[in-house]
């Protein structure tokens, strides 16, 4: 996936939507978790595996990769839906999947060849036209959903098709039953990580293009809600809407026989997840951070964790969004315009304590805006700005923000009152103490910060404010889930709507451009560009990243062949089993 922007709710310990591929653990992290279960017994022949979907609300049940929106549906689909192309530990496509690929020399065309033994659960072979169908649906003028993204639009002829000007996508070419090529307008390294390769069973769900049914009907149809099919290791046997799903082994899965006879998925609330694990009612589930301490102590439970594709940050309001030009405009008259003050505020935040004490080490101070998961691009040598109140004070002094009237609060460089309004989201239980804590940290170095409106803001209201570039907001706390694409331009680019800091600079434009240019197919080049960019961000501090986080998965000790490390054999659901 080409992925960038994903506001994550504080404390939402769910990994960001798509299937994750992880990286070795960050050396700075205080804790080390295994990525794979330690039980090495052989899997039971006809076992039953139970997956706990930790959620306080039911899953939506739109079980089609084209139409789903909730992350929970993705969890359901992992057992029966598969991408044609597999990916490796670096999130890059490989030839190990149900199809193989080739990329043209100009890096603009990819050709996929589907293996022969890849069949839908109803016995029909998976065809090249099924993948075409996916693109036809996603680009369809009637499509109302959030999966129409940059890499779809980048397909040659897609914008015209999307506007309804033509009913053919000129860039996609079905060569044979099993072969298809897709041509892109722009060559970008995202091709290796952000391309959509899940086919849609045209014969099963019905053909919208041929006018068999409408887009609305297909979305609401039982074919994707009650008896959806895929070509994954398990097939859906039964669904209790919103609550549980029963999967059965797909006997002619192309890789071979899946480990279990049945897989049961059931929704468990965050309050009960751990207890269900303890009692063996479920075999594995993600565990909310606040239960980590007890989870550690449970006998028959093993904890796996990897660094999540997300980071939390403090953003500074530096300008506005110009709706006419559709770009961000930096405004030097903003309260936070002084770079030194921003640097000082970063130094003033004691993220280490938050990570260690509040999150028991499951979060740790962030250094740059490229998360360590992207090992090749994260600049481990860049220390970011560590907790150092003295330095913060020094920076403030340097900036001329001094306590003129001696009340312990600094005034700005003109000697005027300097009070910042801080917007933070409610939701997680820790949101309030954390906001409070930062306010204290800043107060310690003499900056007076107060909660905007004296309280936390609800998710929607919070983003409404940011979207509207509300001038009341001086600083804000948010979190982004980065997709699996390290490209940050969707969040920090001049034209990025999600650039709520409204930070712009020419250097920034340049670096972001270079990072996705054709030249960037060269890994070293790209790495260098991103190192430069990270440095720029630590210098200019449009946002101060606060913490990276671990995502915890708890497994019952009877589980075998289970790994959360992408690219390893046991990462694939067909291997997951239970021992006696």
């Amino acid at each position, binding site marked *: 996936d080409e992925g960038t922007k994903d506001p994550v709710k504080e404390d939402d310990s769910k990994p960001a939507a798509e299937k994750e591929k992880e990286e070795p653990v960050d050396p700075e992290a205080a804790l080390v978790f295994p990525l794979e279960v330690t039980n090495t017994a052989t899997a039971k022949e006809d076992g039953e595996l139970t997956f706990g979907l930790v959620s306080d609300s039911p899953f939506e049940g739109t079980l089609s990769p084209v139409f789903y929106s909730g992350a929970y549906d993705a969890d359901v689909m992992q057992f029966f839906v598969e991408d044609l192309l597999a990916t490796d530990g670096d999130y890059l496509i490989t030839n190990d999947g149900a199809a193989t690929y080739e990329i043209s020399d100009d890096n603009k065309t990819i050709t996929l060849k589907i293996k022969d033994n890849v069949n839908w659960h109803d016995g029909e072979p998976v065809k090249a036209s099924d993948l075409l169908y996916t693109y036809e649906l996603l680009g369809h003028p009637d499509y109302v959903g959030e999966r129409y993204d940059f890499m779809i639009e980048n397909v040659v002829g897609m914008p015209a098709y999307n506007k309804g000007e033509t009913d053919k996508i000129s860039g996609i070419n079905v060569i044979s039953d099993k072969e298809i090529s897709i041509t892109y307008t722009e060559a970008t390294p995202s091709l290796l990580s952000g391309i959509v390769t899940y086919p849609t069973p045209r014969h099963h769900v019905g053909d919208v293009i041929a006018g068999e049914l409408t887009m609305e009907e297909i979305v609401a149809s039982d074919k994707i809600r009650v008896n959806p099919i895929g070509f994954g290791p398990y097939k859906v046997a039964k669904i209790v809407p919103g609550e549980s799903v029963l999967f059965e082994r797909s006997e002619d899965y192309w890789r071979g026989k899946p480990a279990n006879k049945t897989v049961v998925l059931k929704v468990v609330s*965050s*309050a*009960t997840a*751990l*207890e269900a694990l303890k009692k063996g009612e479920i075999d594995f589930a993600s565990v*909310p951070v*606040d*239960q980590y*301490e*007890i989870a550690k102590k449970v006998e028959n439970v093993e904890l796996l964790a990897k660094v999540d594709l997300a980071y939390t940050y403090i953003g500074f309001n530096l300008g506005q969004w110009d709706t006419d030009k559709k770009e961000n405009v930096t405004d030097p008259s903003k309260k936070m315009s002084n770079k030194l003050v921003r640097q000082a505020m970063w130094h003033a935040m004691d993220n280490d*304590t*938050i990570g260690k*004490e*509040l999150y028991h080490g499951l979060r740790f101070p962030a250094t740059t805006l490229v998360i360590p998961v992207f090992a090749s691009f994260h600049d481990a040598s860049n220390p970011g700005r560590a907790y150092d109140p003295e330095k913060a004070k020094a920076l403030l002094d340097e900036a001329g923000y001094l306590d003129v009237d001696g009340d312990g609060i600094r005034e700005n460089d003109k000697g005027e009152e300097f009070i910042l309004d801080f917007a933070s989201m*409610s*939701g997680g*239980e*820790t*949101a*309030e*103490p*954390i906001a*409070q*804590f930062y306010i*204290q940290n800043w107060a310690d170095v003499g900056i007076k910060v107060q*909660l905007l*409106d*004296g*309280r*936390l803001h*609800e998710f*929607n*209201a919070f983003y409404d404010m940011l979207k509207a570039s509300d001038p009341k907001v001086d600083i804000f706390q948010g979190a982004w889930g980065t997709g699996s694409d390290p490209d940050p331009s969707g969040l920090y680019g001049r034209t990025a709507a999600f650039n709520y800091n409204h930070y712009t600079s020419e250097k920034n434009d340049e670096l972001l451009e270079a990072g996705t240019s054709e030249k960037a197919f060269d890994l070293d080049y790209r790495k260098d560009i991103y190192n430069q960019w990270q440095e720029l961000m630590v210098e200019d501090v449009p946002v101060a990243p606060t913490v990276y986080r671990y995502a915890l998965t708890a497994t019952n000790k009877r589980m075998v062949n289970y790994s959360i490390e992408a690219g390893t054999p046991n990462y694939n659901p067909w291997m997951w089993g239970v021992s006696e």
Partner: protein
Amino acid sequence: MVVFNEKELMAKEKKNNPSFVKTIWREIRNDKMALGSLILLMFILLAAYLSPLFVDQTALTRVNFFNNWKPPSADNWLGTDDGGRDVFGQLLLGTRNSFTIGLSVTLIAGIFGLTVGLIAGFYGGIVDNIIMRIIDFLMVLPSLMIIIIFVVSVPKYTIFGFILIVSAFAWFGKARLIRSRALAERELDYINASKTLGTPSWKIMSFELFPNLSSLVIVNMTLTLAGNIGLETGLTFLGFGLPAGTSSLGTLISYARNPDIVQNKWWVWLPAALLILVMMLCINYVGQAVKRASDARQRLA
């Protein structure tokens, strides 16, 4: 001589003829349970309302992550919460907020319901009909749901807003109750007498009708007050309660969201839950004495 005598007699008669408030007090004094409850309640409320005098509020809001989830100790009588803040202090502040909310809602809803109910009941006929149709409509509104939607919709959300929203849905039940009693009461001859004596309607409503409904009102108010103390608890649990950072008994109880806290961190939520229970019981016992005072048949004293 006569004058003196009269004054004396007057004083004596006044003493012999206690007002309703005095009757209530006498009734409470004669009921050990009610008296005990009242004293306990007063103690709790005094502690809560005077807490700003001896609790350092800034310290109470100061987060200290090195000190979080500490069980009760000499420093923190009731331990600390997730931000390492003293639960006991929050309990006091929370009691103050919760009681203020409960009392305000009771009063606002009570006064509004009383006014509407009195008007509908006194005038009867078409006025009553119109008011009752409106109330009928309001009664079928799914109040919890609408409160939730309200809470989400209002841009500025404060304790005051919360009180108003909740009161908006609490008055019509009272209006109905008052109205039905007023309807019955207005048939009584003392109301007719006032009418024939030329007393204007508003005077009849406020000086004749109202005093006779006052016992109903007071009894009903004490009992709803008991219910309203824990009012925000449920909403807070659902995430639609008071703004975060405002301590209330509901916020404290809402910590009991997962088994770990229920079981291992009981000191955060249990005292608040017990305090609500105790206050409700106290108010209830006092309320019962009030109820007895208003009904001569049941009086103990």
